């Protein structure tokens, strides 16, 4: 099988803030006819739900600092045909609300979009209480919920359009700070589809969320060092594009995963499960090594926790030389 290749944008690299894209896209989708409502846990000016609150005050419901109730209220609104989007931090929505999401959203399959702002460890110097290193793992284990982690603002926009009409619950993983735009404007997002961003024969990097940008940078450096490295971007961790992952392993016979999340149960876990069952392949998981984070500037955190593109290059080189 050949994996569909998506050309990256040829525009010069520019940053876009996912949270602003999120707030604006909610308005755009509603203007285009979506029956959106947004529920906020007193964080609208952080998550940028305030953009929506300004456009559609009658579709915005402040719920106060009471996230468990918020999940349930969203659920009641969903029974009336509204499509509720939740605004809070990933850390709170995915752990404090887990039972609510399990019983009244996932089990009845109600169409609620759980939007975890400030996911991973790049959360604006807030530290471990506000970071989520386990949210993908938790949500991946919940039956009936799609798990989506876009790489840039354009993919986020496209993903939101798809989720808005999917008719089932989803967890949308968002990152706080601006990140480079890598996709062209014409990019088409499909729930459950992975996209090949770079071909290669020596190593396949499989990445998700904003780590894909760093994976591309790492592949570029490795290219200069003489290695042919592919990058497969997996924006939908569930449902997982098993075919594309297996096909990449066939092509490269060596796999590295990259994510701003624990290596346990996230993308790395999902890929290991998949390959273990379908095509055992030597692999390395790059992500957070079973520990909590801390506060600090993004660059310092990326470095310390081994998530920078330089760290990926090092890991890749070790992997490539040890198998040769």
């Amino acid at each position, binding site marked *: 099988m050949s994996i569909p290749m998506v050309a990256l944008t040829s525009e010069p690299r520019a940053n876009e803030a996912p949270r602003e894209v999120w707030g604006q896209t909610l308005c755009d989708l509603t203007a285009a006819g979506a029956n959106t*409502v947004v529920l906020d846990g007193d964080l609208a000016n952080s998550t940028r739900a305030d953009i929506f609150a300004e456009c559609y005050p*009658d*579709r915005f*419901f402040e*719920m*106060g600092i*009471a996230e*468990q*109730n*918020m*999940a*349930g*209220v*969203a*659920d*009641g*609104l*969903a*029974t*009336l*045909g*509204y499509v*509720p989007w939740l605004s809070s931090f990933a850390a709170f929505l995915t752990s404090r609300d887990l*039972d*609510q999401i*399990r*019983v*009244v959203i996932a*089990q*009845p*399959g109600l169409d609620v979009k759980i939007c975890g702002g400030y996911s991973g460890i790049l959360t604006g110097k807030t530290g471990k209480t506000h970071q989520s290193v386990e949210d993908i793992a938790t949500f991946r284990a919940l039956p009936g919920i799609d798990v989506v982690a876009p790489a840039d603002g354009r993919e986020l926009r496209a993903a939101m359009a798809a989720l808005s009409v999917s008719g089932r619950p989803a967890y949308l993983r968002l990152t706080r700070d601006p990140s480079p735009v890598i996709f062209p404007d014409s990019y088409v997002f499909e729930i459950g589809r992975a996209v090949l961003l770079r071909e290669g024969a020596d190593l396949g990097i499989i990445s998700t969320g904003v780590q894909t940008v760093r994976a591309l940078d790492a592949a570029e450096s490795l290219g200069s060092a003489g290695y042919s490295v592919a990058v497969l971007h997996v924006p939908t961790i569930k449902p997982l594009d098993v075919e594309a992952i297996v096909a990449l392993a066939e092509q490269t016979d060596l796999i590295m995963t990259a994510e701003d999340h624990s290596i346990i149960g996230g993308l790395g876990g999902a890929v290991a499960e998949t390959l273990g069952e379908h095509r055992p392949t030597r692999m390395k998981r790059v992500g957070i090594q079973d520990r909590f984070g801390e506060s600090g500037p993004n660059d310092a955190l990326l470095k310390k926790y081994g998530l920078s593109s330089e760290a990926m290059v090092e890991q890749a080189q070790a992997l490539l030389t040890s198998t040769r």
Partner: protein
Amino acid sequence: MTQNRRSLRTTSELDDLSARTRELILRSVFKAGAGHIGGPLSVTDILVNLYFDRLRVDPTQPELPGRDRLILSKGHSSIALYTVLALRGYFPVEELDTFDAVDSRLQGHPCMKTLPGVDMSTGSLGQGLSPGVGMALGARRSKLDFRTWVILGDGEIQEGQIWEACFVAARYRLSNLTVILDYNRLPQFGWPSETGYTREVPIDDPAAKFSAFGWATVECDGHDHDALRDAFDKAEANDDRPTAIIANTIKGKGITFMEANHNWHARVPTQEELDAAIAELATRSLAGVGRS
């Protein structure tokens, strides 16, 4: 909202329906060899009164957008809800025999996905009021005239999420939302005291608590159909805030040896106990003492 509704059933008809419901609850739990007894018998009259006298619902069209909504937040009392739905015509009474069985629509705890007529999935206590708030908010925004009723257990309201929901409901002045507290004062296990386990809920004077959160409150005898009718009328007449009805009930109501006995929270009767219980229901309803 319609106030002082036309009574659809006489009080004695409702009493008969309550007795019939209690009998079917006991038979279903006996047949399934599992399930709860105390809570279902406690909430029976409330459910009968709602479904046969109050709710604007049509069993032949369970998804009607304008229907009143009922959330049984204390989902472990599912068999009481299933029985009343069956008697009301949502599905054949014989289907109660499938309670708790594999592939049955009558799951241990109510599932809105499998059973038409169930407005919200419940079972994890403390969660049912929040969807009720969502329904009431949505009804207001969609200009739908229905009322949302949520039945809570007194043990259940120890959950903090209940009070999150209460605060938000009052903040949005959701007068189209009514809580009925099944105040039987017994949870499953209870609390320790100097003299052993008290088996009592720690929530004294729930009316004061709801009222502190900005709700209107009404108290009534939760086994007296006339009293329930009055309380529901009062709740519907409040047009500026949500109402909590504190319905004083008895866990295991209707069967002397089960009443106010925490051991019957979730015990399956033996054949002899079942026979004795059903015999008692028959004499009570003949004598018209089904009513408290």
